[in-house]
């Protein structure tokens, strides 16, 4: 099937729809295509996973959607609205991102209160006091954390703050870039549970990027496997569980995730 036909087929009630996305880095002779002809769509309330190894372009797709990468071609449709190179305020109220490393993504000299208030100030939202308290409660931290600094928090607590920050503007779509890969497994379980609860309670749509197949199987209904900038396979989580992926690269990933295989 031609990729544009796939896009057509998936179009029905998609909240987030990407078709024929190409992303480039660098200029002139050095110009490098990091993402090639990527198409997929996520329905409202759905959870879609992008898996692949480092350099496969999965994070680049997220960063392009969120407007952090400028040099791209193709269409990015959000709620039926096609995205331009410039993004307006309404865009950032619809879509928010959680980054990989909670040690790097929070401003070290800003209190949690300031970090969480900033998006509200930028968007002129009132009622800031109550909203910050509510966000802290939503992510299971409690209001006692409000005037602390990031260095006074553990990795898991920081990631909760990062999730709270993304939720401040009540977005519909959350872009999650390896949200638990910097955390211990016990903390990872807490964060994944929190994300599942939030999705249910707030009817959020997730686009999750990870290299961990077990995490993606736990969190998502549909999974796209990326390799060298291209999507090599889109499958449902059931297909992956039944170990029926078509592409050899997917099989290799699946095998490696089971643990060590001697030569």
């Amino acid at each position: 099937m031609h990729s544009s036909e796939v896009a057509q087929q998936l179009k029905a009630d998609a909240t987030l729809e990407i078709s024929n996305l190409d992303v480039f880095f660098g200029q002139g002779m050095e110009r490098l295509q990091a993402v090639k002809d990527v198409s997929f769509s996520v329905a409202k309330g759905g959870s879609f996973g992008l898996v692949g190894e480092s350099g496969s372009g999965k994070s680049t797709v997220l960063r392009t959607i969120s407007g952090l990468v400028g040099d791209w071609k193709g269409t990015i449709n959000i709620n039926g609205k096609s995205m331009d190179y410039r993004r307006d305020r309404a865009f950032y109220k619809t879509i928010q991102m959680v980054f990989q490393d909670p040690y790097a993504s929070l401003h070290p000299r800003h209190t949690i209160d300031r970090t969480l208030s900033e998006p509200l100030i930028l968007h002129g939202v009132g009622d800031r006091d109550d909203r910050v308290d509510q966000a802290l409660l939503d992510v299971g931290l409690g209001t006692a954390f409000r005037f602390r600094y990031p260095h006074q928090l553990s990795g898991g607590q920081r990631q909760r703050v990062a999730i709270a920050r993304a939720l401040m503007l009540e977005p519909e779509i959350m872009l999650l870039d390896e949200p638990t890969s910097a955390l211990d497994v016990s903390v990872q379980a807490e964060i994944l549970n929190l994300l599942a609860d939030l999705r249910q309670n707030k009817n959020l749509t997730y686009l999750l990027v990870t290299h961990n197949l077990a995490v993606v199987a736990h969190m998502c209904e549909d999974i796209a496997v990326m390799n060298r900038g291209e999507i090599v396979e889109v499958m449902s989580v059931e297909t992956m569980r039944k170990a029926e992926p078509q592409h050899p690269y997917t099989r290799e990933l699946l095998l490696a995730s089971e643990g060590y295989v001697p030569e």
Partner: protein
Amino acid sequence: MSKPLLEIEDLWVRFQTKRKVVEAVRGISFSVGRERIGIVGESGSGKSMTGRAILRLIREPGKVKAGKILFDGIDLQSLSEKEMRGIRGHRISLVMQDPKFSLNPVMKVGQQIAEAYRVHNKSSKAEAKKRALKMLEAVQIRNPERVYDSYPHEVSGGMGQRIMIAMMLIPEPDLLIADEPTSALDVTVQMRVLQIMDKLVRDRGMGLIFISHDLNLVSSFCDRVIIMYGGKIVETCRADELQQAKHPYTRGLLAALPHIHSPCERLSVLERDPRWQEEPSVDAFI
């Protein structure tokens, strides 16, 4: 299994700060033979400190105290700093987690690997270069000639890690301490690196201490596992029996992992029991 390569009894690592003494490792005892032994635990469990303490790499204000650190019949605690340098890198190597901080930024990577070889073996420069290139090839670097002449900032993280591993393996150590050596690598590359280490254990009888937080990986790769919590060994078992572990901490860690084949609504969250801190450390001898 014959006589152990490394024996450690009652190892403590303490950090004296202004206000209090932090005990990173609290009286652990274990031994390592010519086998693959995994040390697992979460961040702060003392697993990395254990590896560093063996090589006397704990900096001030940290203090190491042990009843016994015996490596191949040598009492490591009695050695002078100079004698210790003859052990470090030559007979016991350490691969650290982050290649960015372990490679010399102003020296070509190939020269660094060749130097590692020449320091420990009498050889010509040409011979060292040949060895270094062969080692780069062994760690699955596609274009060894080009990488040999690169500086550390010109290679990716995954490649940097493979370069580190090549450098640590080239003197052919008797014991390799690998501290999260593959955490930064892609699964497929990780597999290759593990196979290289596995081969060295099987063919040359190297001992391997594999420090990791990845329970699945350790249980499939190692022979024995030590589980650390709060600076102590809470449990030890054969790696293939890790799934039947008894300690509530180990059980909690295993239950917190998502699985591809057994879907669940919610992951179980580890409940920590303060009594775990008070339990005596379990001995993990061969």
